[in-house]
């Protein structure tokens, strides 16, 4: 999403509108979906963690300097190499921050 403008325009409205919904509002819905028990709990924890990870990853990827892509391409890198050797390592710090926030939020939704 951070790499492609098209994907950003497609998914951003969906994600932004979903993440505004407070976690408590999902409780009745998830009980309908998964029934009582551990199902809704696990879903909610995972669900609350997804957004910070996505948003931070997108921000991380958008922040990568264009020079790195250009440098890789001028050294003959293909799309897979650009993804695994440039995009992932360059945005890893942001992805990990997203993970940390996600763990916090997950704990919040447990409570």
């Amino acid at each position, binding site marked *: 999403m951070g790499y492609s403008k098209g994907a950003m325009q497609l998914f951003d409205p969906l994600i932004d509108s979903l993440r505004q919904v407070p976690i408590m509002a999902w409780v009745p819905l998830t009980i309908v979906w998964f029934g009582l028990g551990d199902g809704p709990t696990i879903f909610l924890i995972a669900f609350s963690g997804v957004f910070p990870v996505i948003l931070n990853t997108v921000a991380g990827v958008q922040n990568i*300097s264009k*020079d*790195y892509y*250009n*440098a*890789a*391409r*001028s*050294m*003959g*890198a*293909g799309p897979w*190499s650009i993804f695994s*050797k*440039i995009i992932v*390592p*360059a945005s*890893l710090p942001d992805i990990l921050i997203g993970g940390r926030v996600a763990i916090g939020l997950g704990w919040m939704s447990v409570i």
Partner: protein
Amino acid sequence: MELTVEGISKNFKNENTVQTVLKDLSFTVREGQFATLLGPSGCGKTTLLTIIAGFQAASGGRVMINGAQVTRPGPDRGFVFQNYALFPWMTVRENILYPMKQRRVPAKEREKRFKELLAMAQLEGKEKLYPHQLSGGMKQRVAFIRALAGRPEVLLMDEPLGAVDMQMRQSLQEDLEALWLKDKTTVVMVTHDVDEAIYLSDRVIVMSAREGKIVDDMPVRLPRPRDRKGMEYQKHKEHLAEALKVAVGRQAETAVTEGKLCLA
């Protein structure tokens, strides 16, 4: 190998104004030549270089290498960035091996070439460091040998010494010259520094601020390493300074023709 730039133009369109940055530019760089694009800032020299590299498309004209047109970035054109663009998550070794891995050079040969390059840049023992642990000069040398690692046909350099101070700059120019003399790859360099242009290049192409035309195309045939204080060197310098004045648009075109006569 021969690099030909044929009638390259570049326009940037804003809402309703069209800004011409490059207009119908043509030149040919011979095998093994060190050519420099010199011009005031904003004359489109970096734009031209990125077009040659294939990072952006031209509005008109074409770039040919050995007679074949190029439109996208490729390993036949190495690029040295102004800020080096070394990958900070890779060690010096990984940075230099990266282009060779992309070209699927066999491991044995890769190792050999790596040692060779490291020795060339006098960076032995630094291969395990990360870019942020290196000094500016070392980064510059790493960037240079990384660009050479994939054995490009042409090396494109965008103000490779733009970020260092005057003293450092001169000694780095000497390093760069020594490195280049060992490899003799064809080079196109962009700079706004007259002294740097004369010290390093075989040929200086001066571009004007308006519409990026070529104002002057001067060969430099002084023996290397060049004596910065020599008579001929100073003459070249004066001539280029004049040409640059024209490039900025302060004087009429005639000044350059006069300058040419003086040199001849």
